[in-house]
């Protein structure tokens, strides 16, 4: 922990000996005047110093959660000093370009962060009337995200993944490539509970942006004490809020892996003997997650923004598990990664039909991205949904028995994966390139199928060969034009074509 400037006037009170040490918790007796959530400094007999936070004060007892854990603490010889305030950290641009641990201590051999301005890591809720509606896009250079689940400044858009998928690669790629043309852009990455191998990969991947002084990395590895993991996102978001709302930068915060964070919360809750809720996570997990996820947005009359991309691995790939479920209730959409797509060698394996950016509607189109963007995005999703039904049908009756149009849906789906989705981990595509690829993919379909695009856009961008496979006479209305292509159940269309 880095010392804060306002420590000097508050001479910390020091107590010798503790009543109890268990798991992350230390109980100190005989205390007086200790504030809830205050910072505690724990001194071991060996001279080692640890930090802790006051979880509860009860008469002359203080319960402290020790950030580094209580291993090696002998209650009889330990001494504990308390600050008058909840934990504060210095804020400023000095965090950028550096690597820190979850408590904000340097990991790169550099000096600790110092600064005259400090902020409480717990943060304060933003007055809802001060918020501005997020409307402008952030481009990640990743086609499938920019085209179909566009990230908007001030949004929180999580990546739902499962074990074994390349979510850390994707998170790192977003962190490295995300930008806004012509404006200051800063990135704060919090890695929580990563294995050393993942941490090293992450660190290497982020190196170019860190070297440019645009990125701060907070690294908490799987063997670090769990309590530190609870602190790490708060430290990082405090840094990000200052960069965004006080200094006017556009800031992207990548939080990975939130599953490790939630497990840390559960572990501490269990150590405190709290009543468990779903899957033994504490009942306040929603409020706790909200206290992190809501620390983003835009403020009326201020230049900057804070955007969040939390990454979480769904235990057993179950989207109804409390972690993705509570996250989904707070965040504005989700990007879902698919084990099947990963299995077929696609990167990034984004399941477009399960993914959604709730704020995209306001963030794309004329003057923001390109006027044809909303239309082409709806068309791609609708066509993809129909292509999936056609694929199911083809498995039953064989691709040869499909109508000509449906066969073109299959080649559309293939082109979608190979032309638009598939991308290298180091490859950044411009929006023009991405949307041109989208049109190339859509051009696999007959023109008559493009019901969600304006005639002007089709004329301007469509590159398909209309006569090649469109087996209908020109004057006949397109098949099923009255049925939204996304309608799945109960659908009788497929059965009809079978007969």
């Amino acid at each position, binding site marked *: 922990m880095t010392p804060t400037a306002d420590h000097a006037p508050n001479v910390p009170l020091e107590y010798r000996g503790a009543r109890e040490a268990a798991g992350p918790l230390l109980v100190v007796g005989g205390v007086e005047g200790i504030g809830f959530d205050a910072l505690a400094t724990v001194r071991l007999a060996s001279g080692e110093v640890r930090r802790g936070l006051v979880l509860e004060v*009860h008469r002359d007892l203080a319960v402290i959660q020790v950030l580094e854990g209580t291993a090696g603490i002998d209650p009889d010889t330990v001494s504990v000093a308390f600050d008058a305030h909840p934990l504060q950290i210095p804020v400023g641009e000095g965090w950028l370009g550096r690597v820190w641990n979850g408590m904000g201590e340097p990991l790169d051999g550099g000096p600790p962060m110092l600064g005259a301005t400090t902020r409480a890591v717990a943060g304060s809720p933003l007055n*809802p009337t001060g918020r501005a*509606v997020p409307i402008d896009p952030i481009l990640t250079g990743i086609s499938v995200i920019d085209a179909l689940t566009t990230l908007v400044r001030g949004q929180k858009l999580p990546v739902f993944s499962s074990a074994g998928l390349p979510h850390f690669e994707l998170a790192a790629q977003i962190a490295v490539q995300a930008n806004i043309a012509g404006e200051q852009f800063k990135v704060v990455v919090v890695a929580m509970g990563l294995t050393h191998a993942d941490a090293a990969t992450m660190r290497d991947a982020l190196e170019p942006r860190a070297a440019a002084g645009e990125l701060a990395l907070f690294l908490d590895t799987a063997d670090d004490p769990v309590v530190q993991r609870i602190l790490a996102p708060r430290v990082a978001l405090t840094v990000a809020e200052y960069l965004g709302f006080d200094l006017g930068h556009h800031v992207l915060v990548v939080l990975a892996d939130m599953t490790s964070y939630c497990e840390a919360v559960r572990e501490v809750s269990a150590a405190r003997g709290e009543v468990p809720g779903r899957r033994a996570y504490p009942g*306040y997990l929603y409020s706790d997650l909200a206290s992190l996820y809501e620390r983003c947005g835009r403020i009326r009359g201020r230049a900057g923004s804070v955007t969040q991309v939390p990454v979480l691995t769904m235990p057993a790939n179950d989207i109804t598990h409390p972690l993705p479920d509570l996250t989904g209730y707070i965040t504005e959409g989700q990007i879902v990664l698919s084990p099947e797509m990963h299995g077929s060698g696609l990167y990034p394996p984004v399941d477009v039909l399960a993914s959604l950016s709730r704020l995209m509607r306001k963030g794309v189109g004329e003057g923001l991205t390109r006027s044809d963007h909303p239309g082409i995005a709806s068309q791609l999703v609708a066509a993809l949904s129909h292509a999936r039904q056609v694929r199911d049908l083809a498995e039953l009756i064989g691709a040869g028995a499909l109508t000509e149009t449906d066969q073109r849906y299959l080649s559309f789906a293939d082109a979608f994966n190979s032309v638009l989705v598939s991308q290298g981990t180091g490859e950044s595509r411009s929006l023009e390139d991405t949307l041109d690829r989208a049109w190339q993919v859509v051009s696999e379909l007959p023109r008559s199928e493009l019901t969600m695009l304006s005639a002007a856009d089709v004329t301007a961008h469509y590159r398909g060969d209309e006569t090649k496979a469109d087996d209908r006479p020109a004057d006949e209305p397109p098949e099923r034009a*009255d049925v939204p292509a996304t309608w799945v159940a109960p659908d*009788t269309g497929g059965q009809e074509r079978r007969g």
Partner: protein
Amino acid sequence: MSNPTAPTAMADDRPGPGRVVRVNGPLVEIEGLDQVAVLDVVEVGHNSLAAEVVSVRQGLLTAQVYEYTGGLRVGDPALGQGHPLSARFGPDLLGGIFDGLLRPLTGQPLWLSAGALRQTGTRRQWPFAPAVSTGTVVAPGNLLGMVPTPSGVDHRVLVPPGTAGPVDWVAGDGEVDDDEPIASIGGSPVAISEQWPVRAPRPVRARLELSAPLLTGQRVVDLLFPIAKGATAAVPGGFGTGKTVLLQQLVKWCEADVVVFVGCGERGNELADALADLSKLDDPRTGRSLLERTVVIANTSNMPVMAREASIHTGMTVAEFYRDMGYDTVLLADSTSRWAEALREFSSRSGELPAEEGYPAGLASALAAFYERAGRVTTLGGEEGSVTAIGAVSPPGGDMAEPVTAHTERFVRCLWSLDRDLAYARHYPAVTWRRSFSRDAQSVGAWHASEGRPAWARDRARAVALLAEADRLAPMVELVGLASLPGRERVTLLAGRLLREAVLQQSAQSVNDGHCTPAKQEALLELVLALYDRFLALVDQGHPASAVEEIDTSGVVRIRDEVGPDDAAGVERRRDEMLAALENWK
């Protein structure tokens, strides 16, 4: 750890402030504070954080604090306020945005740190016009005067409950201050604003039967699962099922005089978006911003948890306050699950024995008590007014058996369940007919008949039957194939699809389709039912079902978006064209 010791000498010797002996998140224990009742407000610490006493045991008070308690210490002072949690209800409510304790959020600091939010010192002047004269004997609920507002919802100053007698004096026409007395009744001063404890339901003369529907402009609600004025509804739906959009549509289009929207533990960005939308939308009645007859209570998910718990009651009291003036009010709470979680969090910290999933055993009665505050009533003053309560429910993992959903279902008159499969198929609003109900359909049917729509109840019954029949047939098609079904059943499937797409689906973004008047609703339903009858007749005449299925029905699906929100005649023209075209078919 809990080793009760004698109060310290300091607390014994001095009257006045008690002292804090325990702080655990929002839970605070206090001793040495006398004459404090359960539910009274105390202020704790040097920042005077508001807290509410939840229990008193042998001189030890347990209180829930409505702010972040970081820095609060054992030994910090606690002062009893001598009254339960109350708020001031006045003409500034309309168009305002408040926190869960009804403290205005506009004009407050950007960052709401503990103790930052205060009742603003600035008072407004309001125009007042008296309706009584000196000497008149008045009783609770009688009209004392009016404060006209631009919203078209005039603020009626009423004799407060518990006050009666002759009017000693009353202010004349002119500007008055919020809290300045405008009259004296039997020796008690009365102002245009009134203090009221938010957990206590405001008294009424009588409860009335429910009859007229609260029209929402949303077809699946008004046609299939109508809600009566003064009734209650719950909207359970997992994330991504369009719950928030549906609620916002209700805020915008429901036919109420005053709408109270309680954003209870929801997203900050979403609230900013809703506020921006509301201020842009015009109230069809006055042509002014819709926000002016809306009261927004905003306790976003990151604001203090205990204020979230209070926000539901605060919102309900605001709705009752306007009901007492004789208005039809609607309370929308998004989401009651987050409120229940606040109850759970506190009960867990105070060491109560948990019931299902850690919720307190009192969850069911707390939910019941909340929904019971809704109703259509004769007010103390003899006016008719209503509070309709609509609560969103966020079942974890879409599990409808979880305690909040399961209990809520029992207490509400309408259930509008949102379905993930429908949402995934972009069928919006994703209200499923399989798991929704309305216990007011019959009385609403009678009301429609009295309004000159005698066919409403019959058409609704046919629509419900058609949906059920189509649902019964769908799995059979998967088993045996469409071609194996008899012609009439294939037509039923076709009509079921038309009913879903042409009537039940509704686009919130569309200017023409965003809301829909009862006449257009009925015309759309009759269009589908008339076609259903005609298709059945064609099949009975021996036409193959496959040929009927090929009839171009795209005009049926598109008409809802092609004509204006009240253009029933346009829909009827489309019906006549379709039927005429089928007259000489083949």
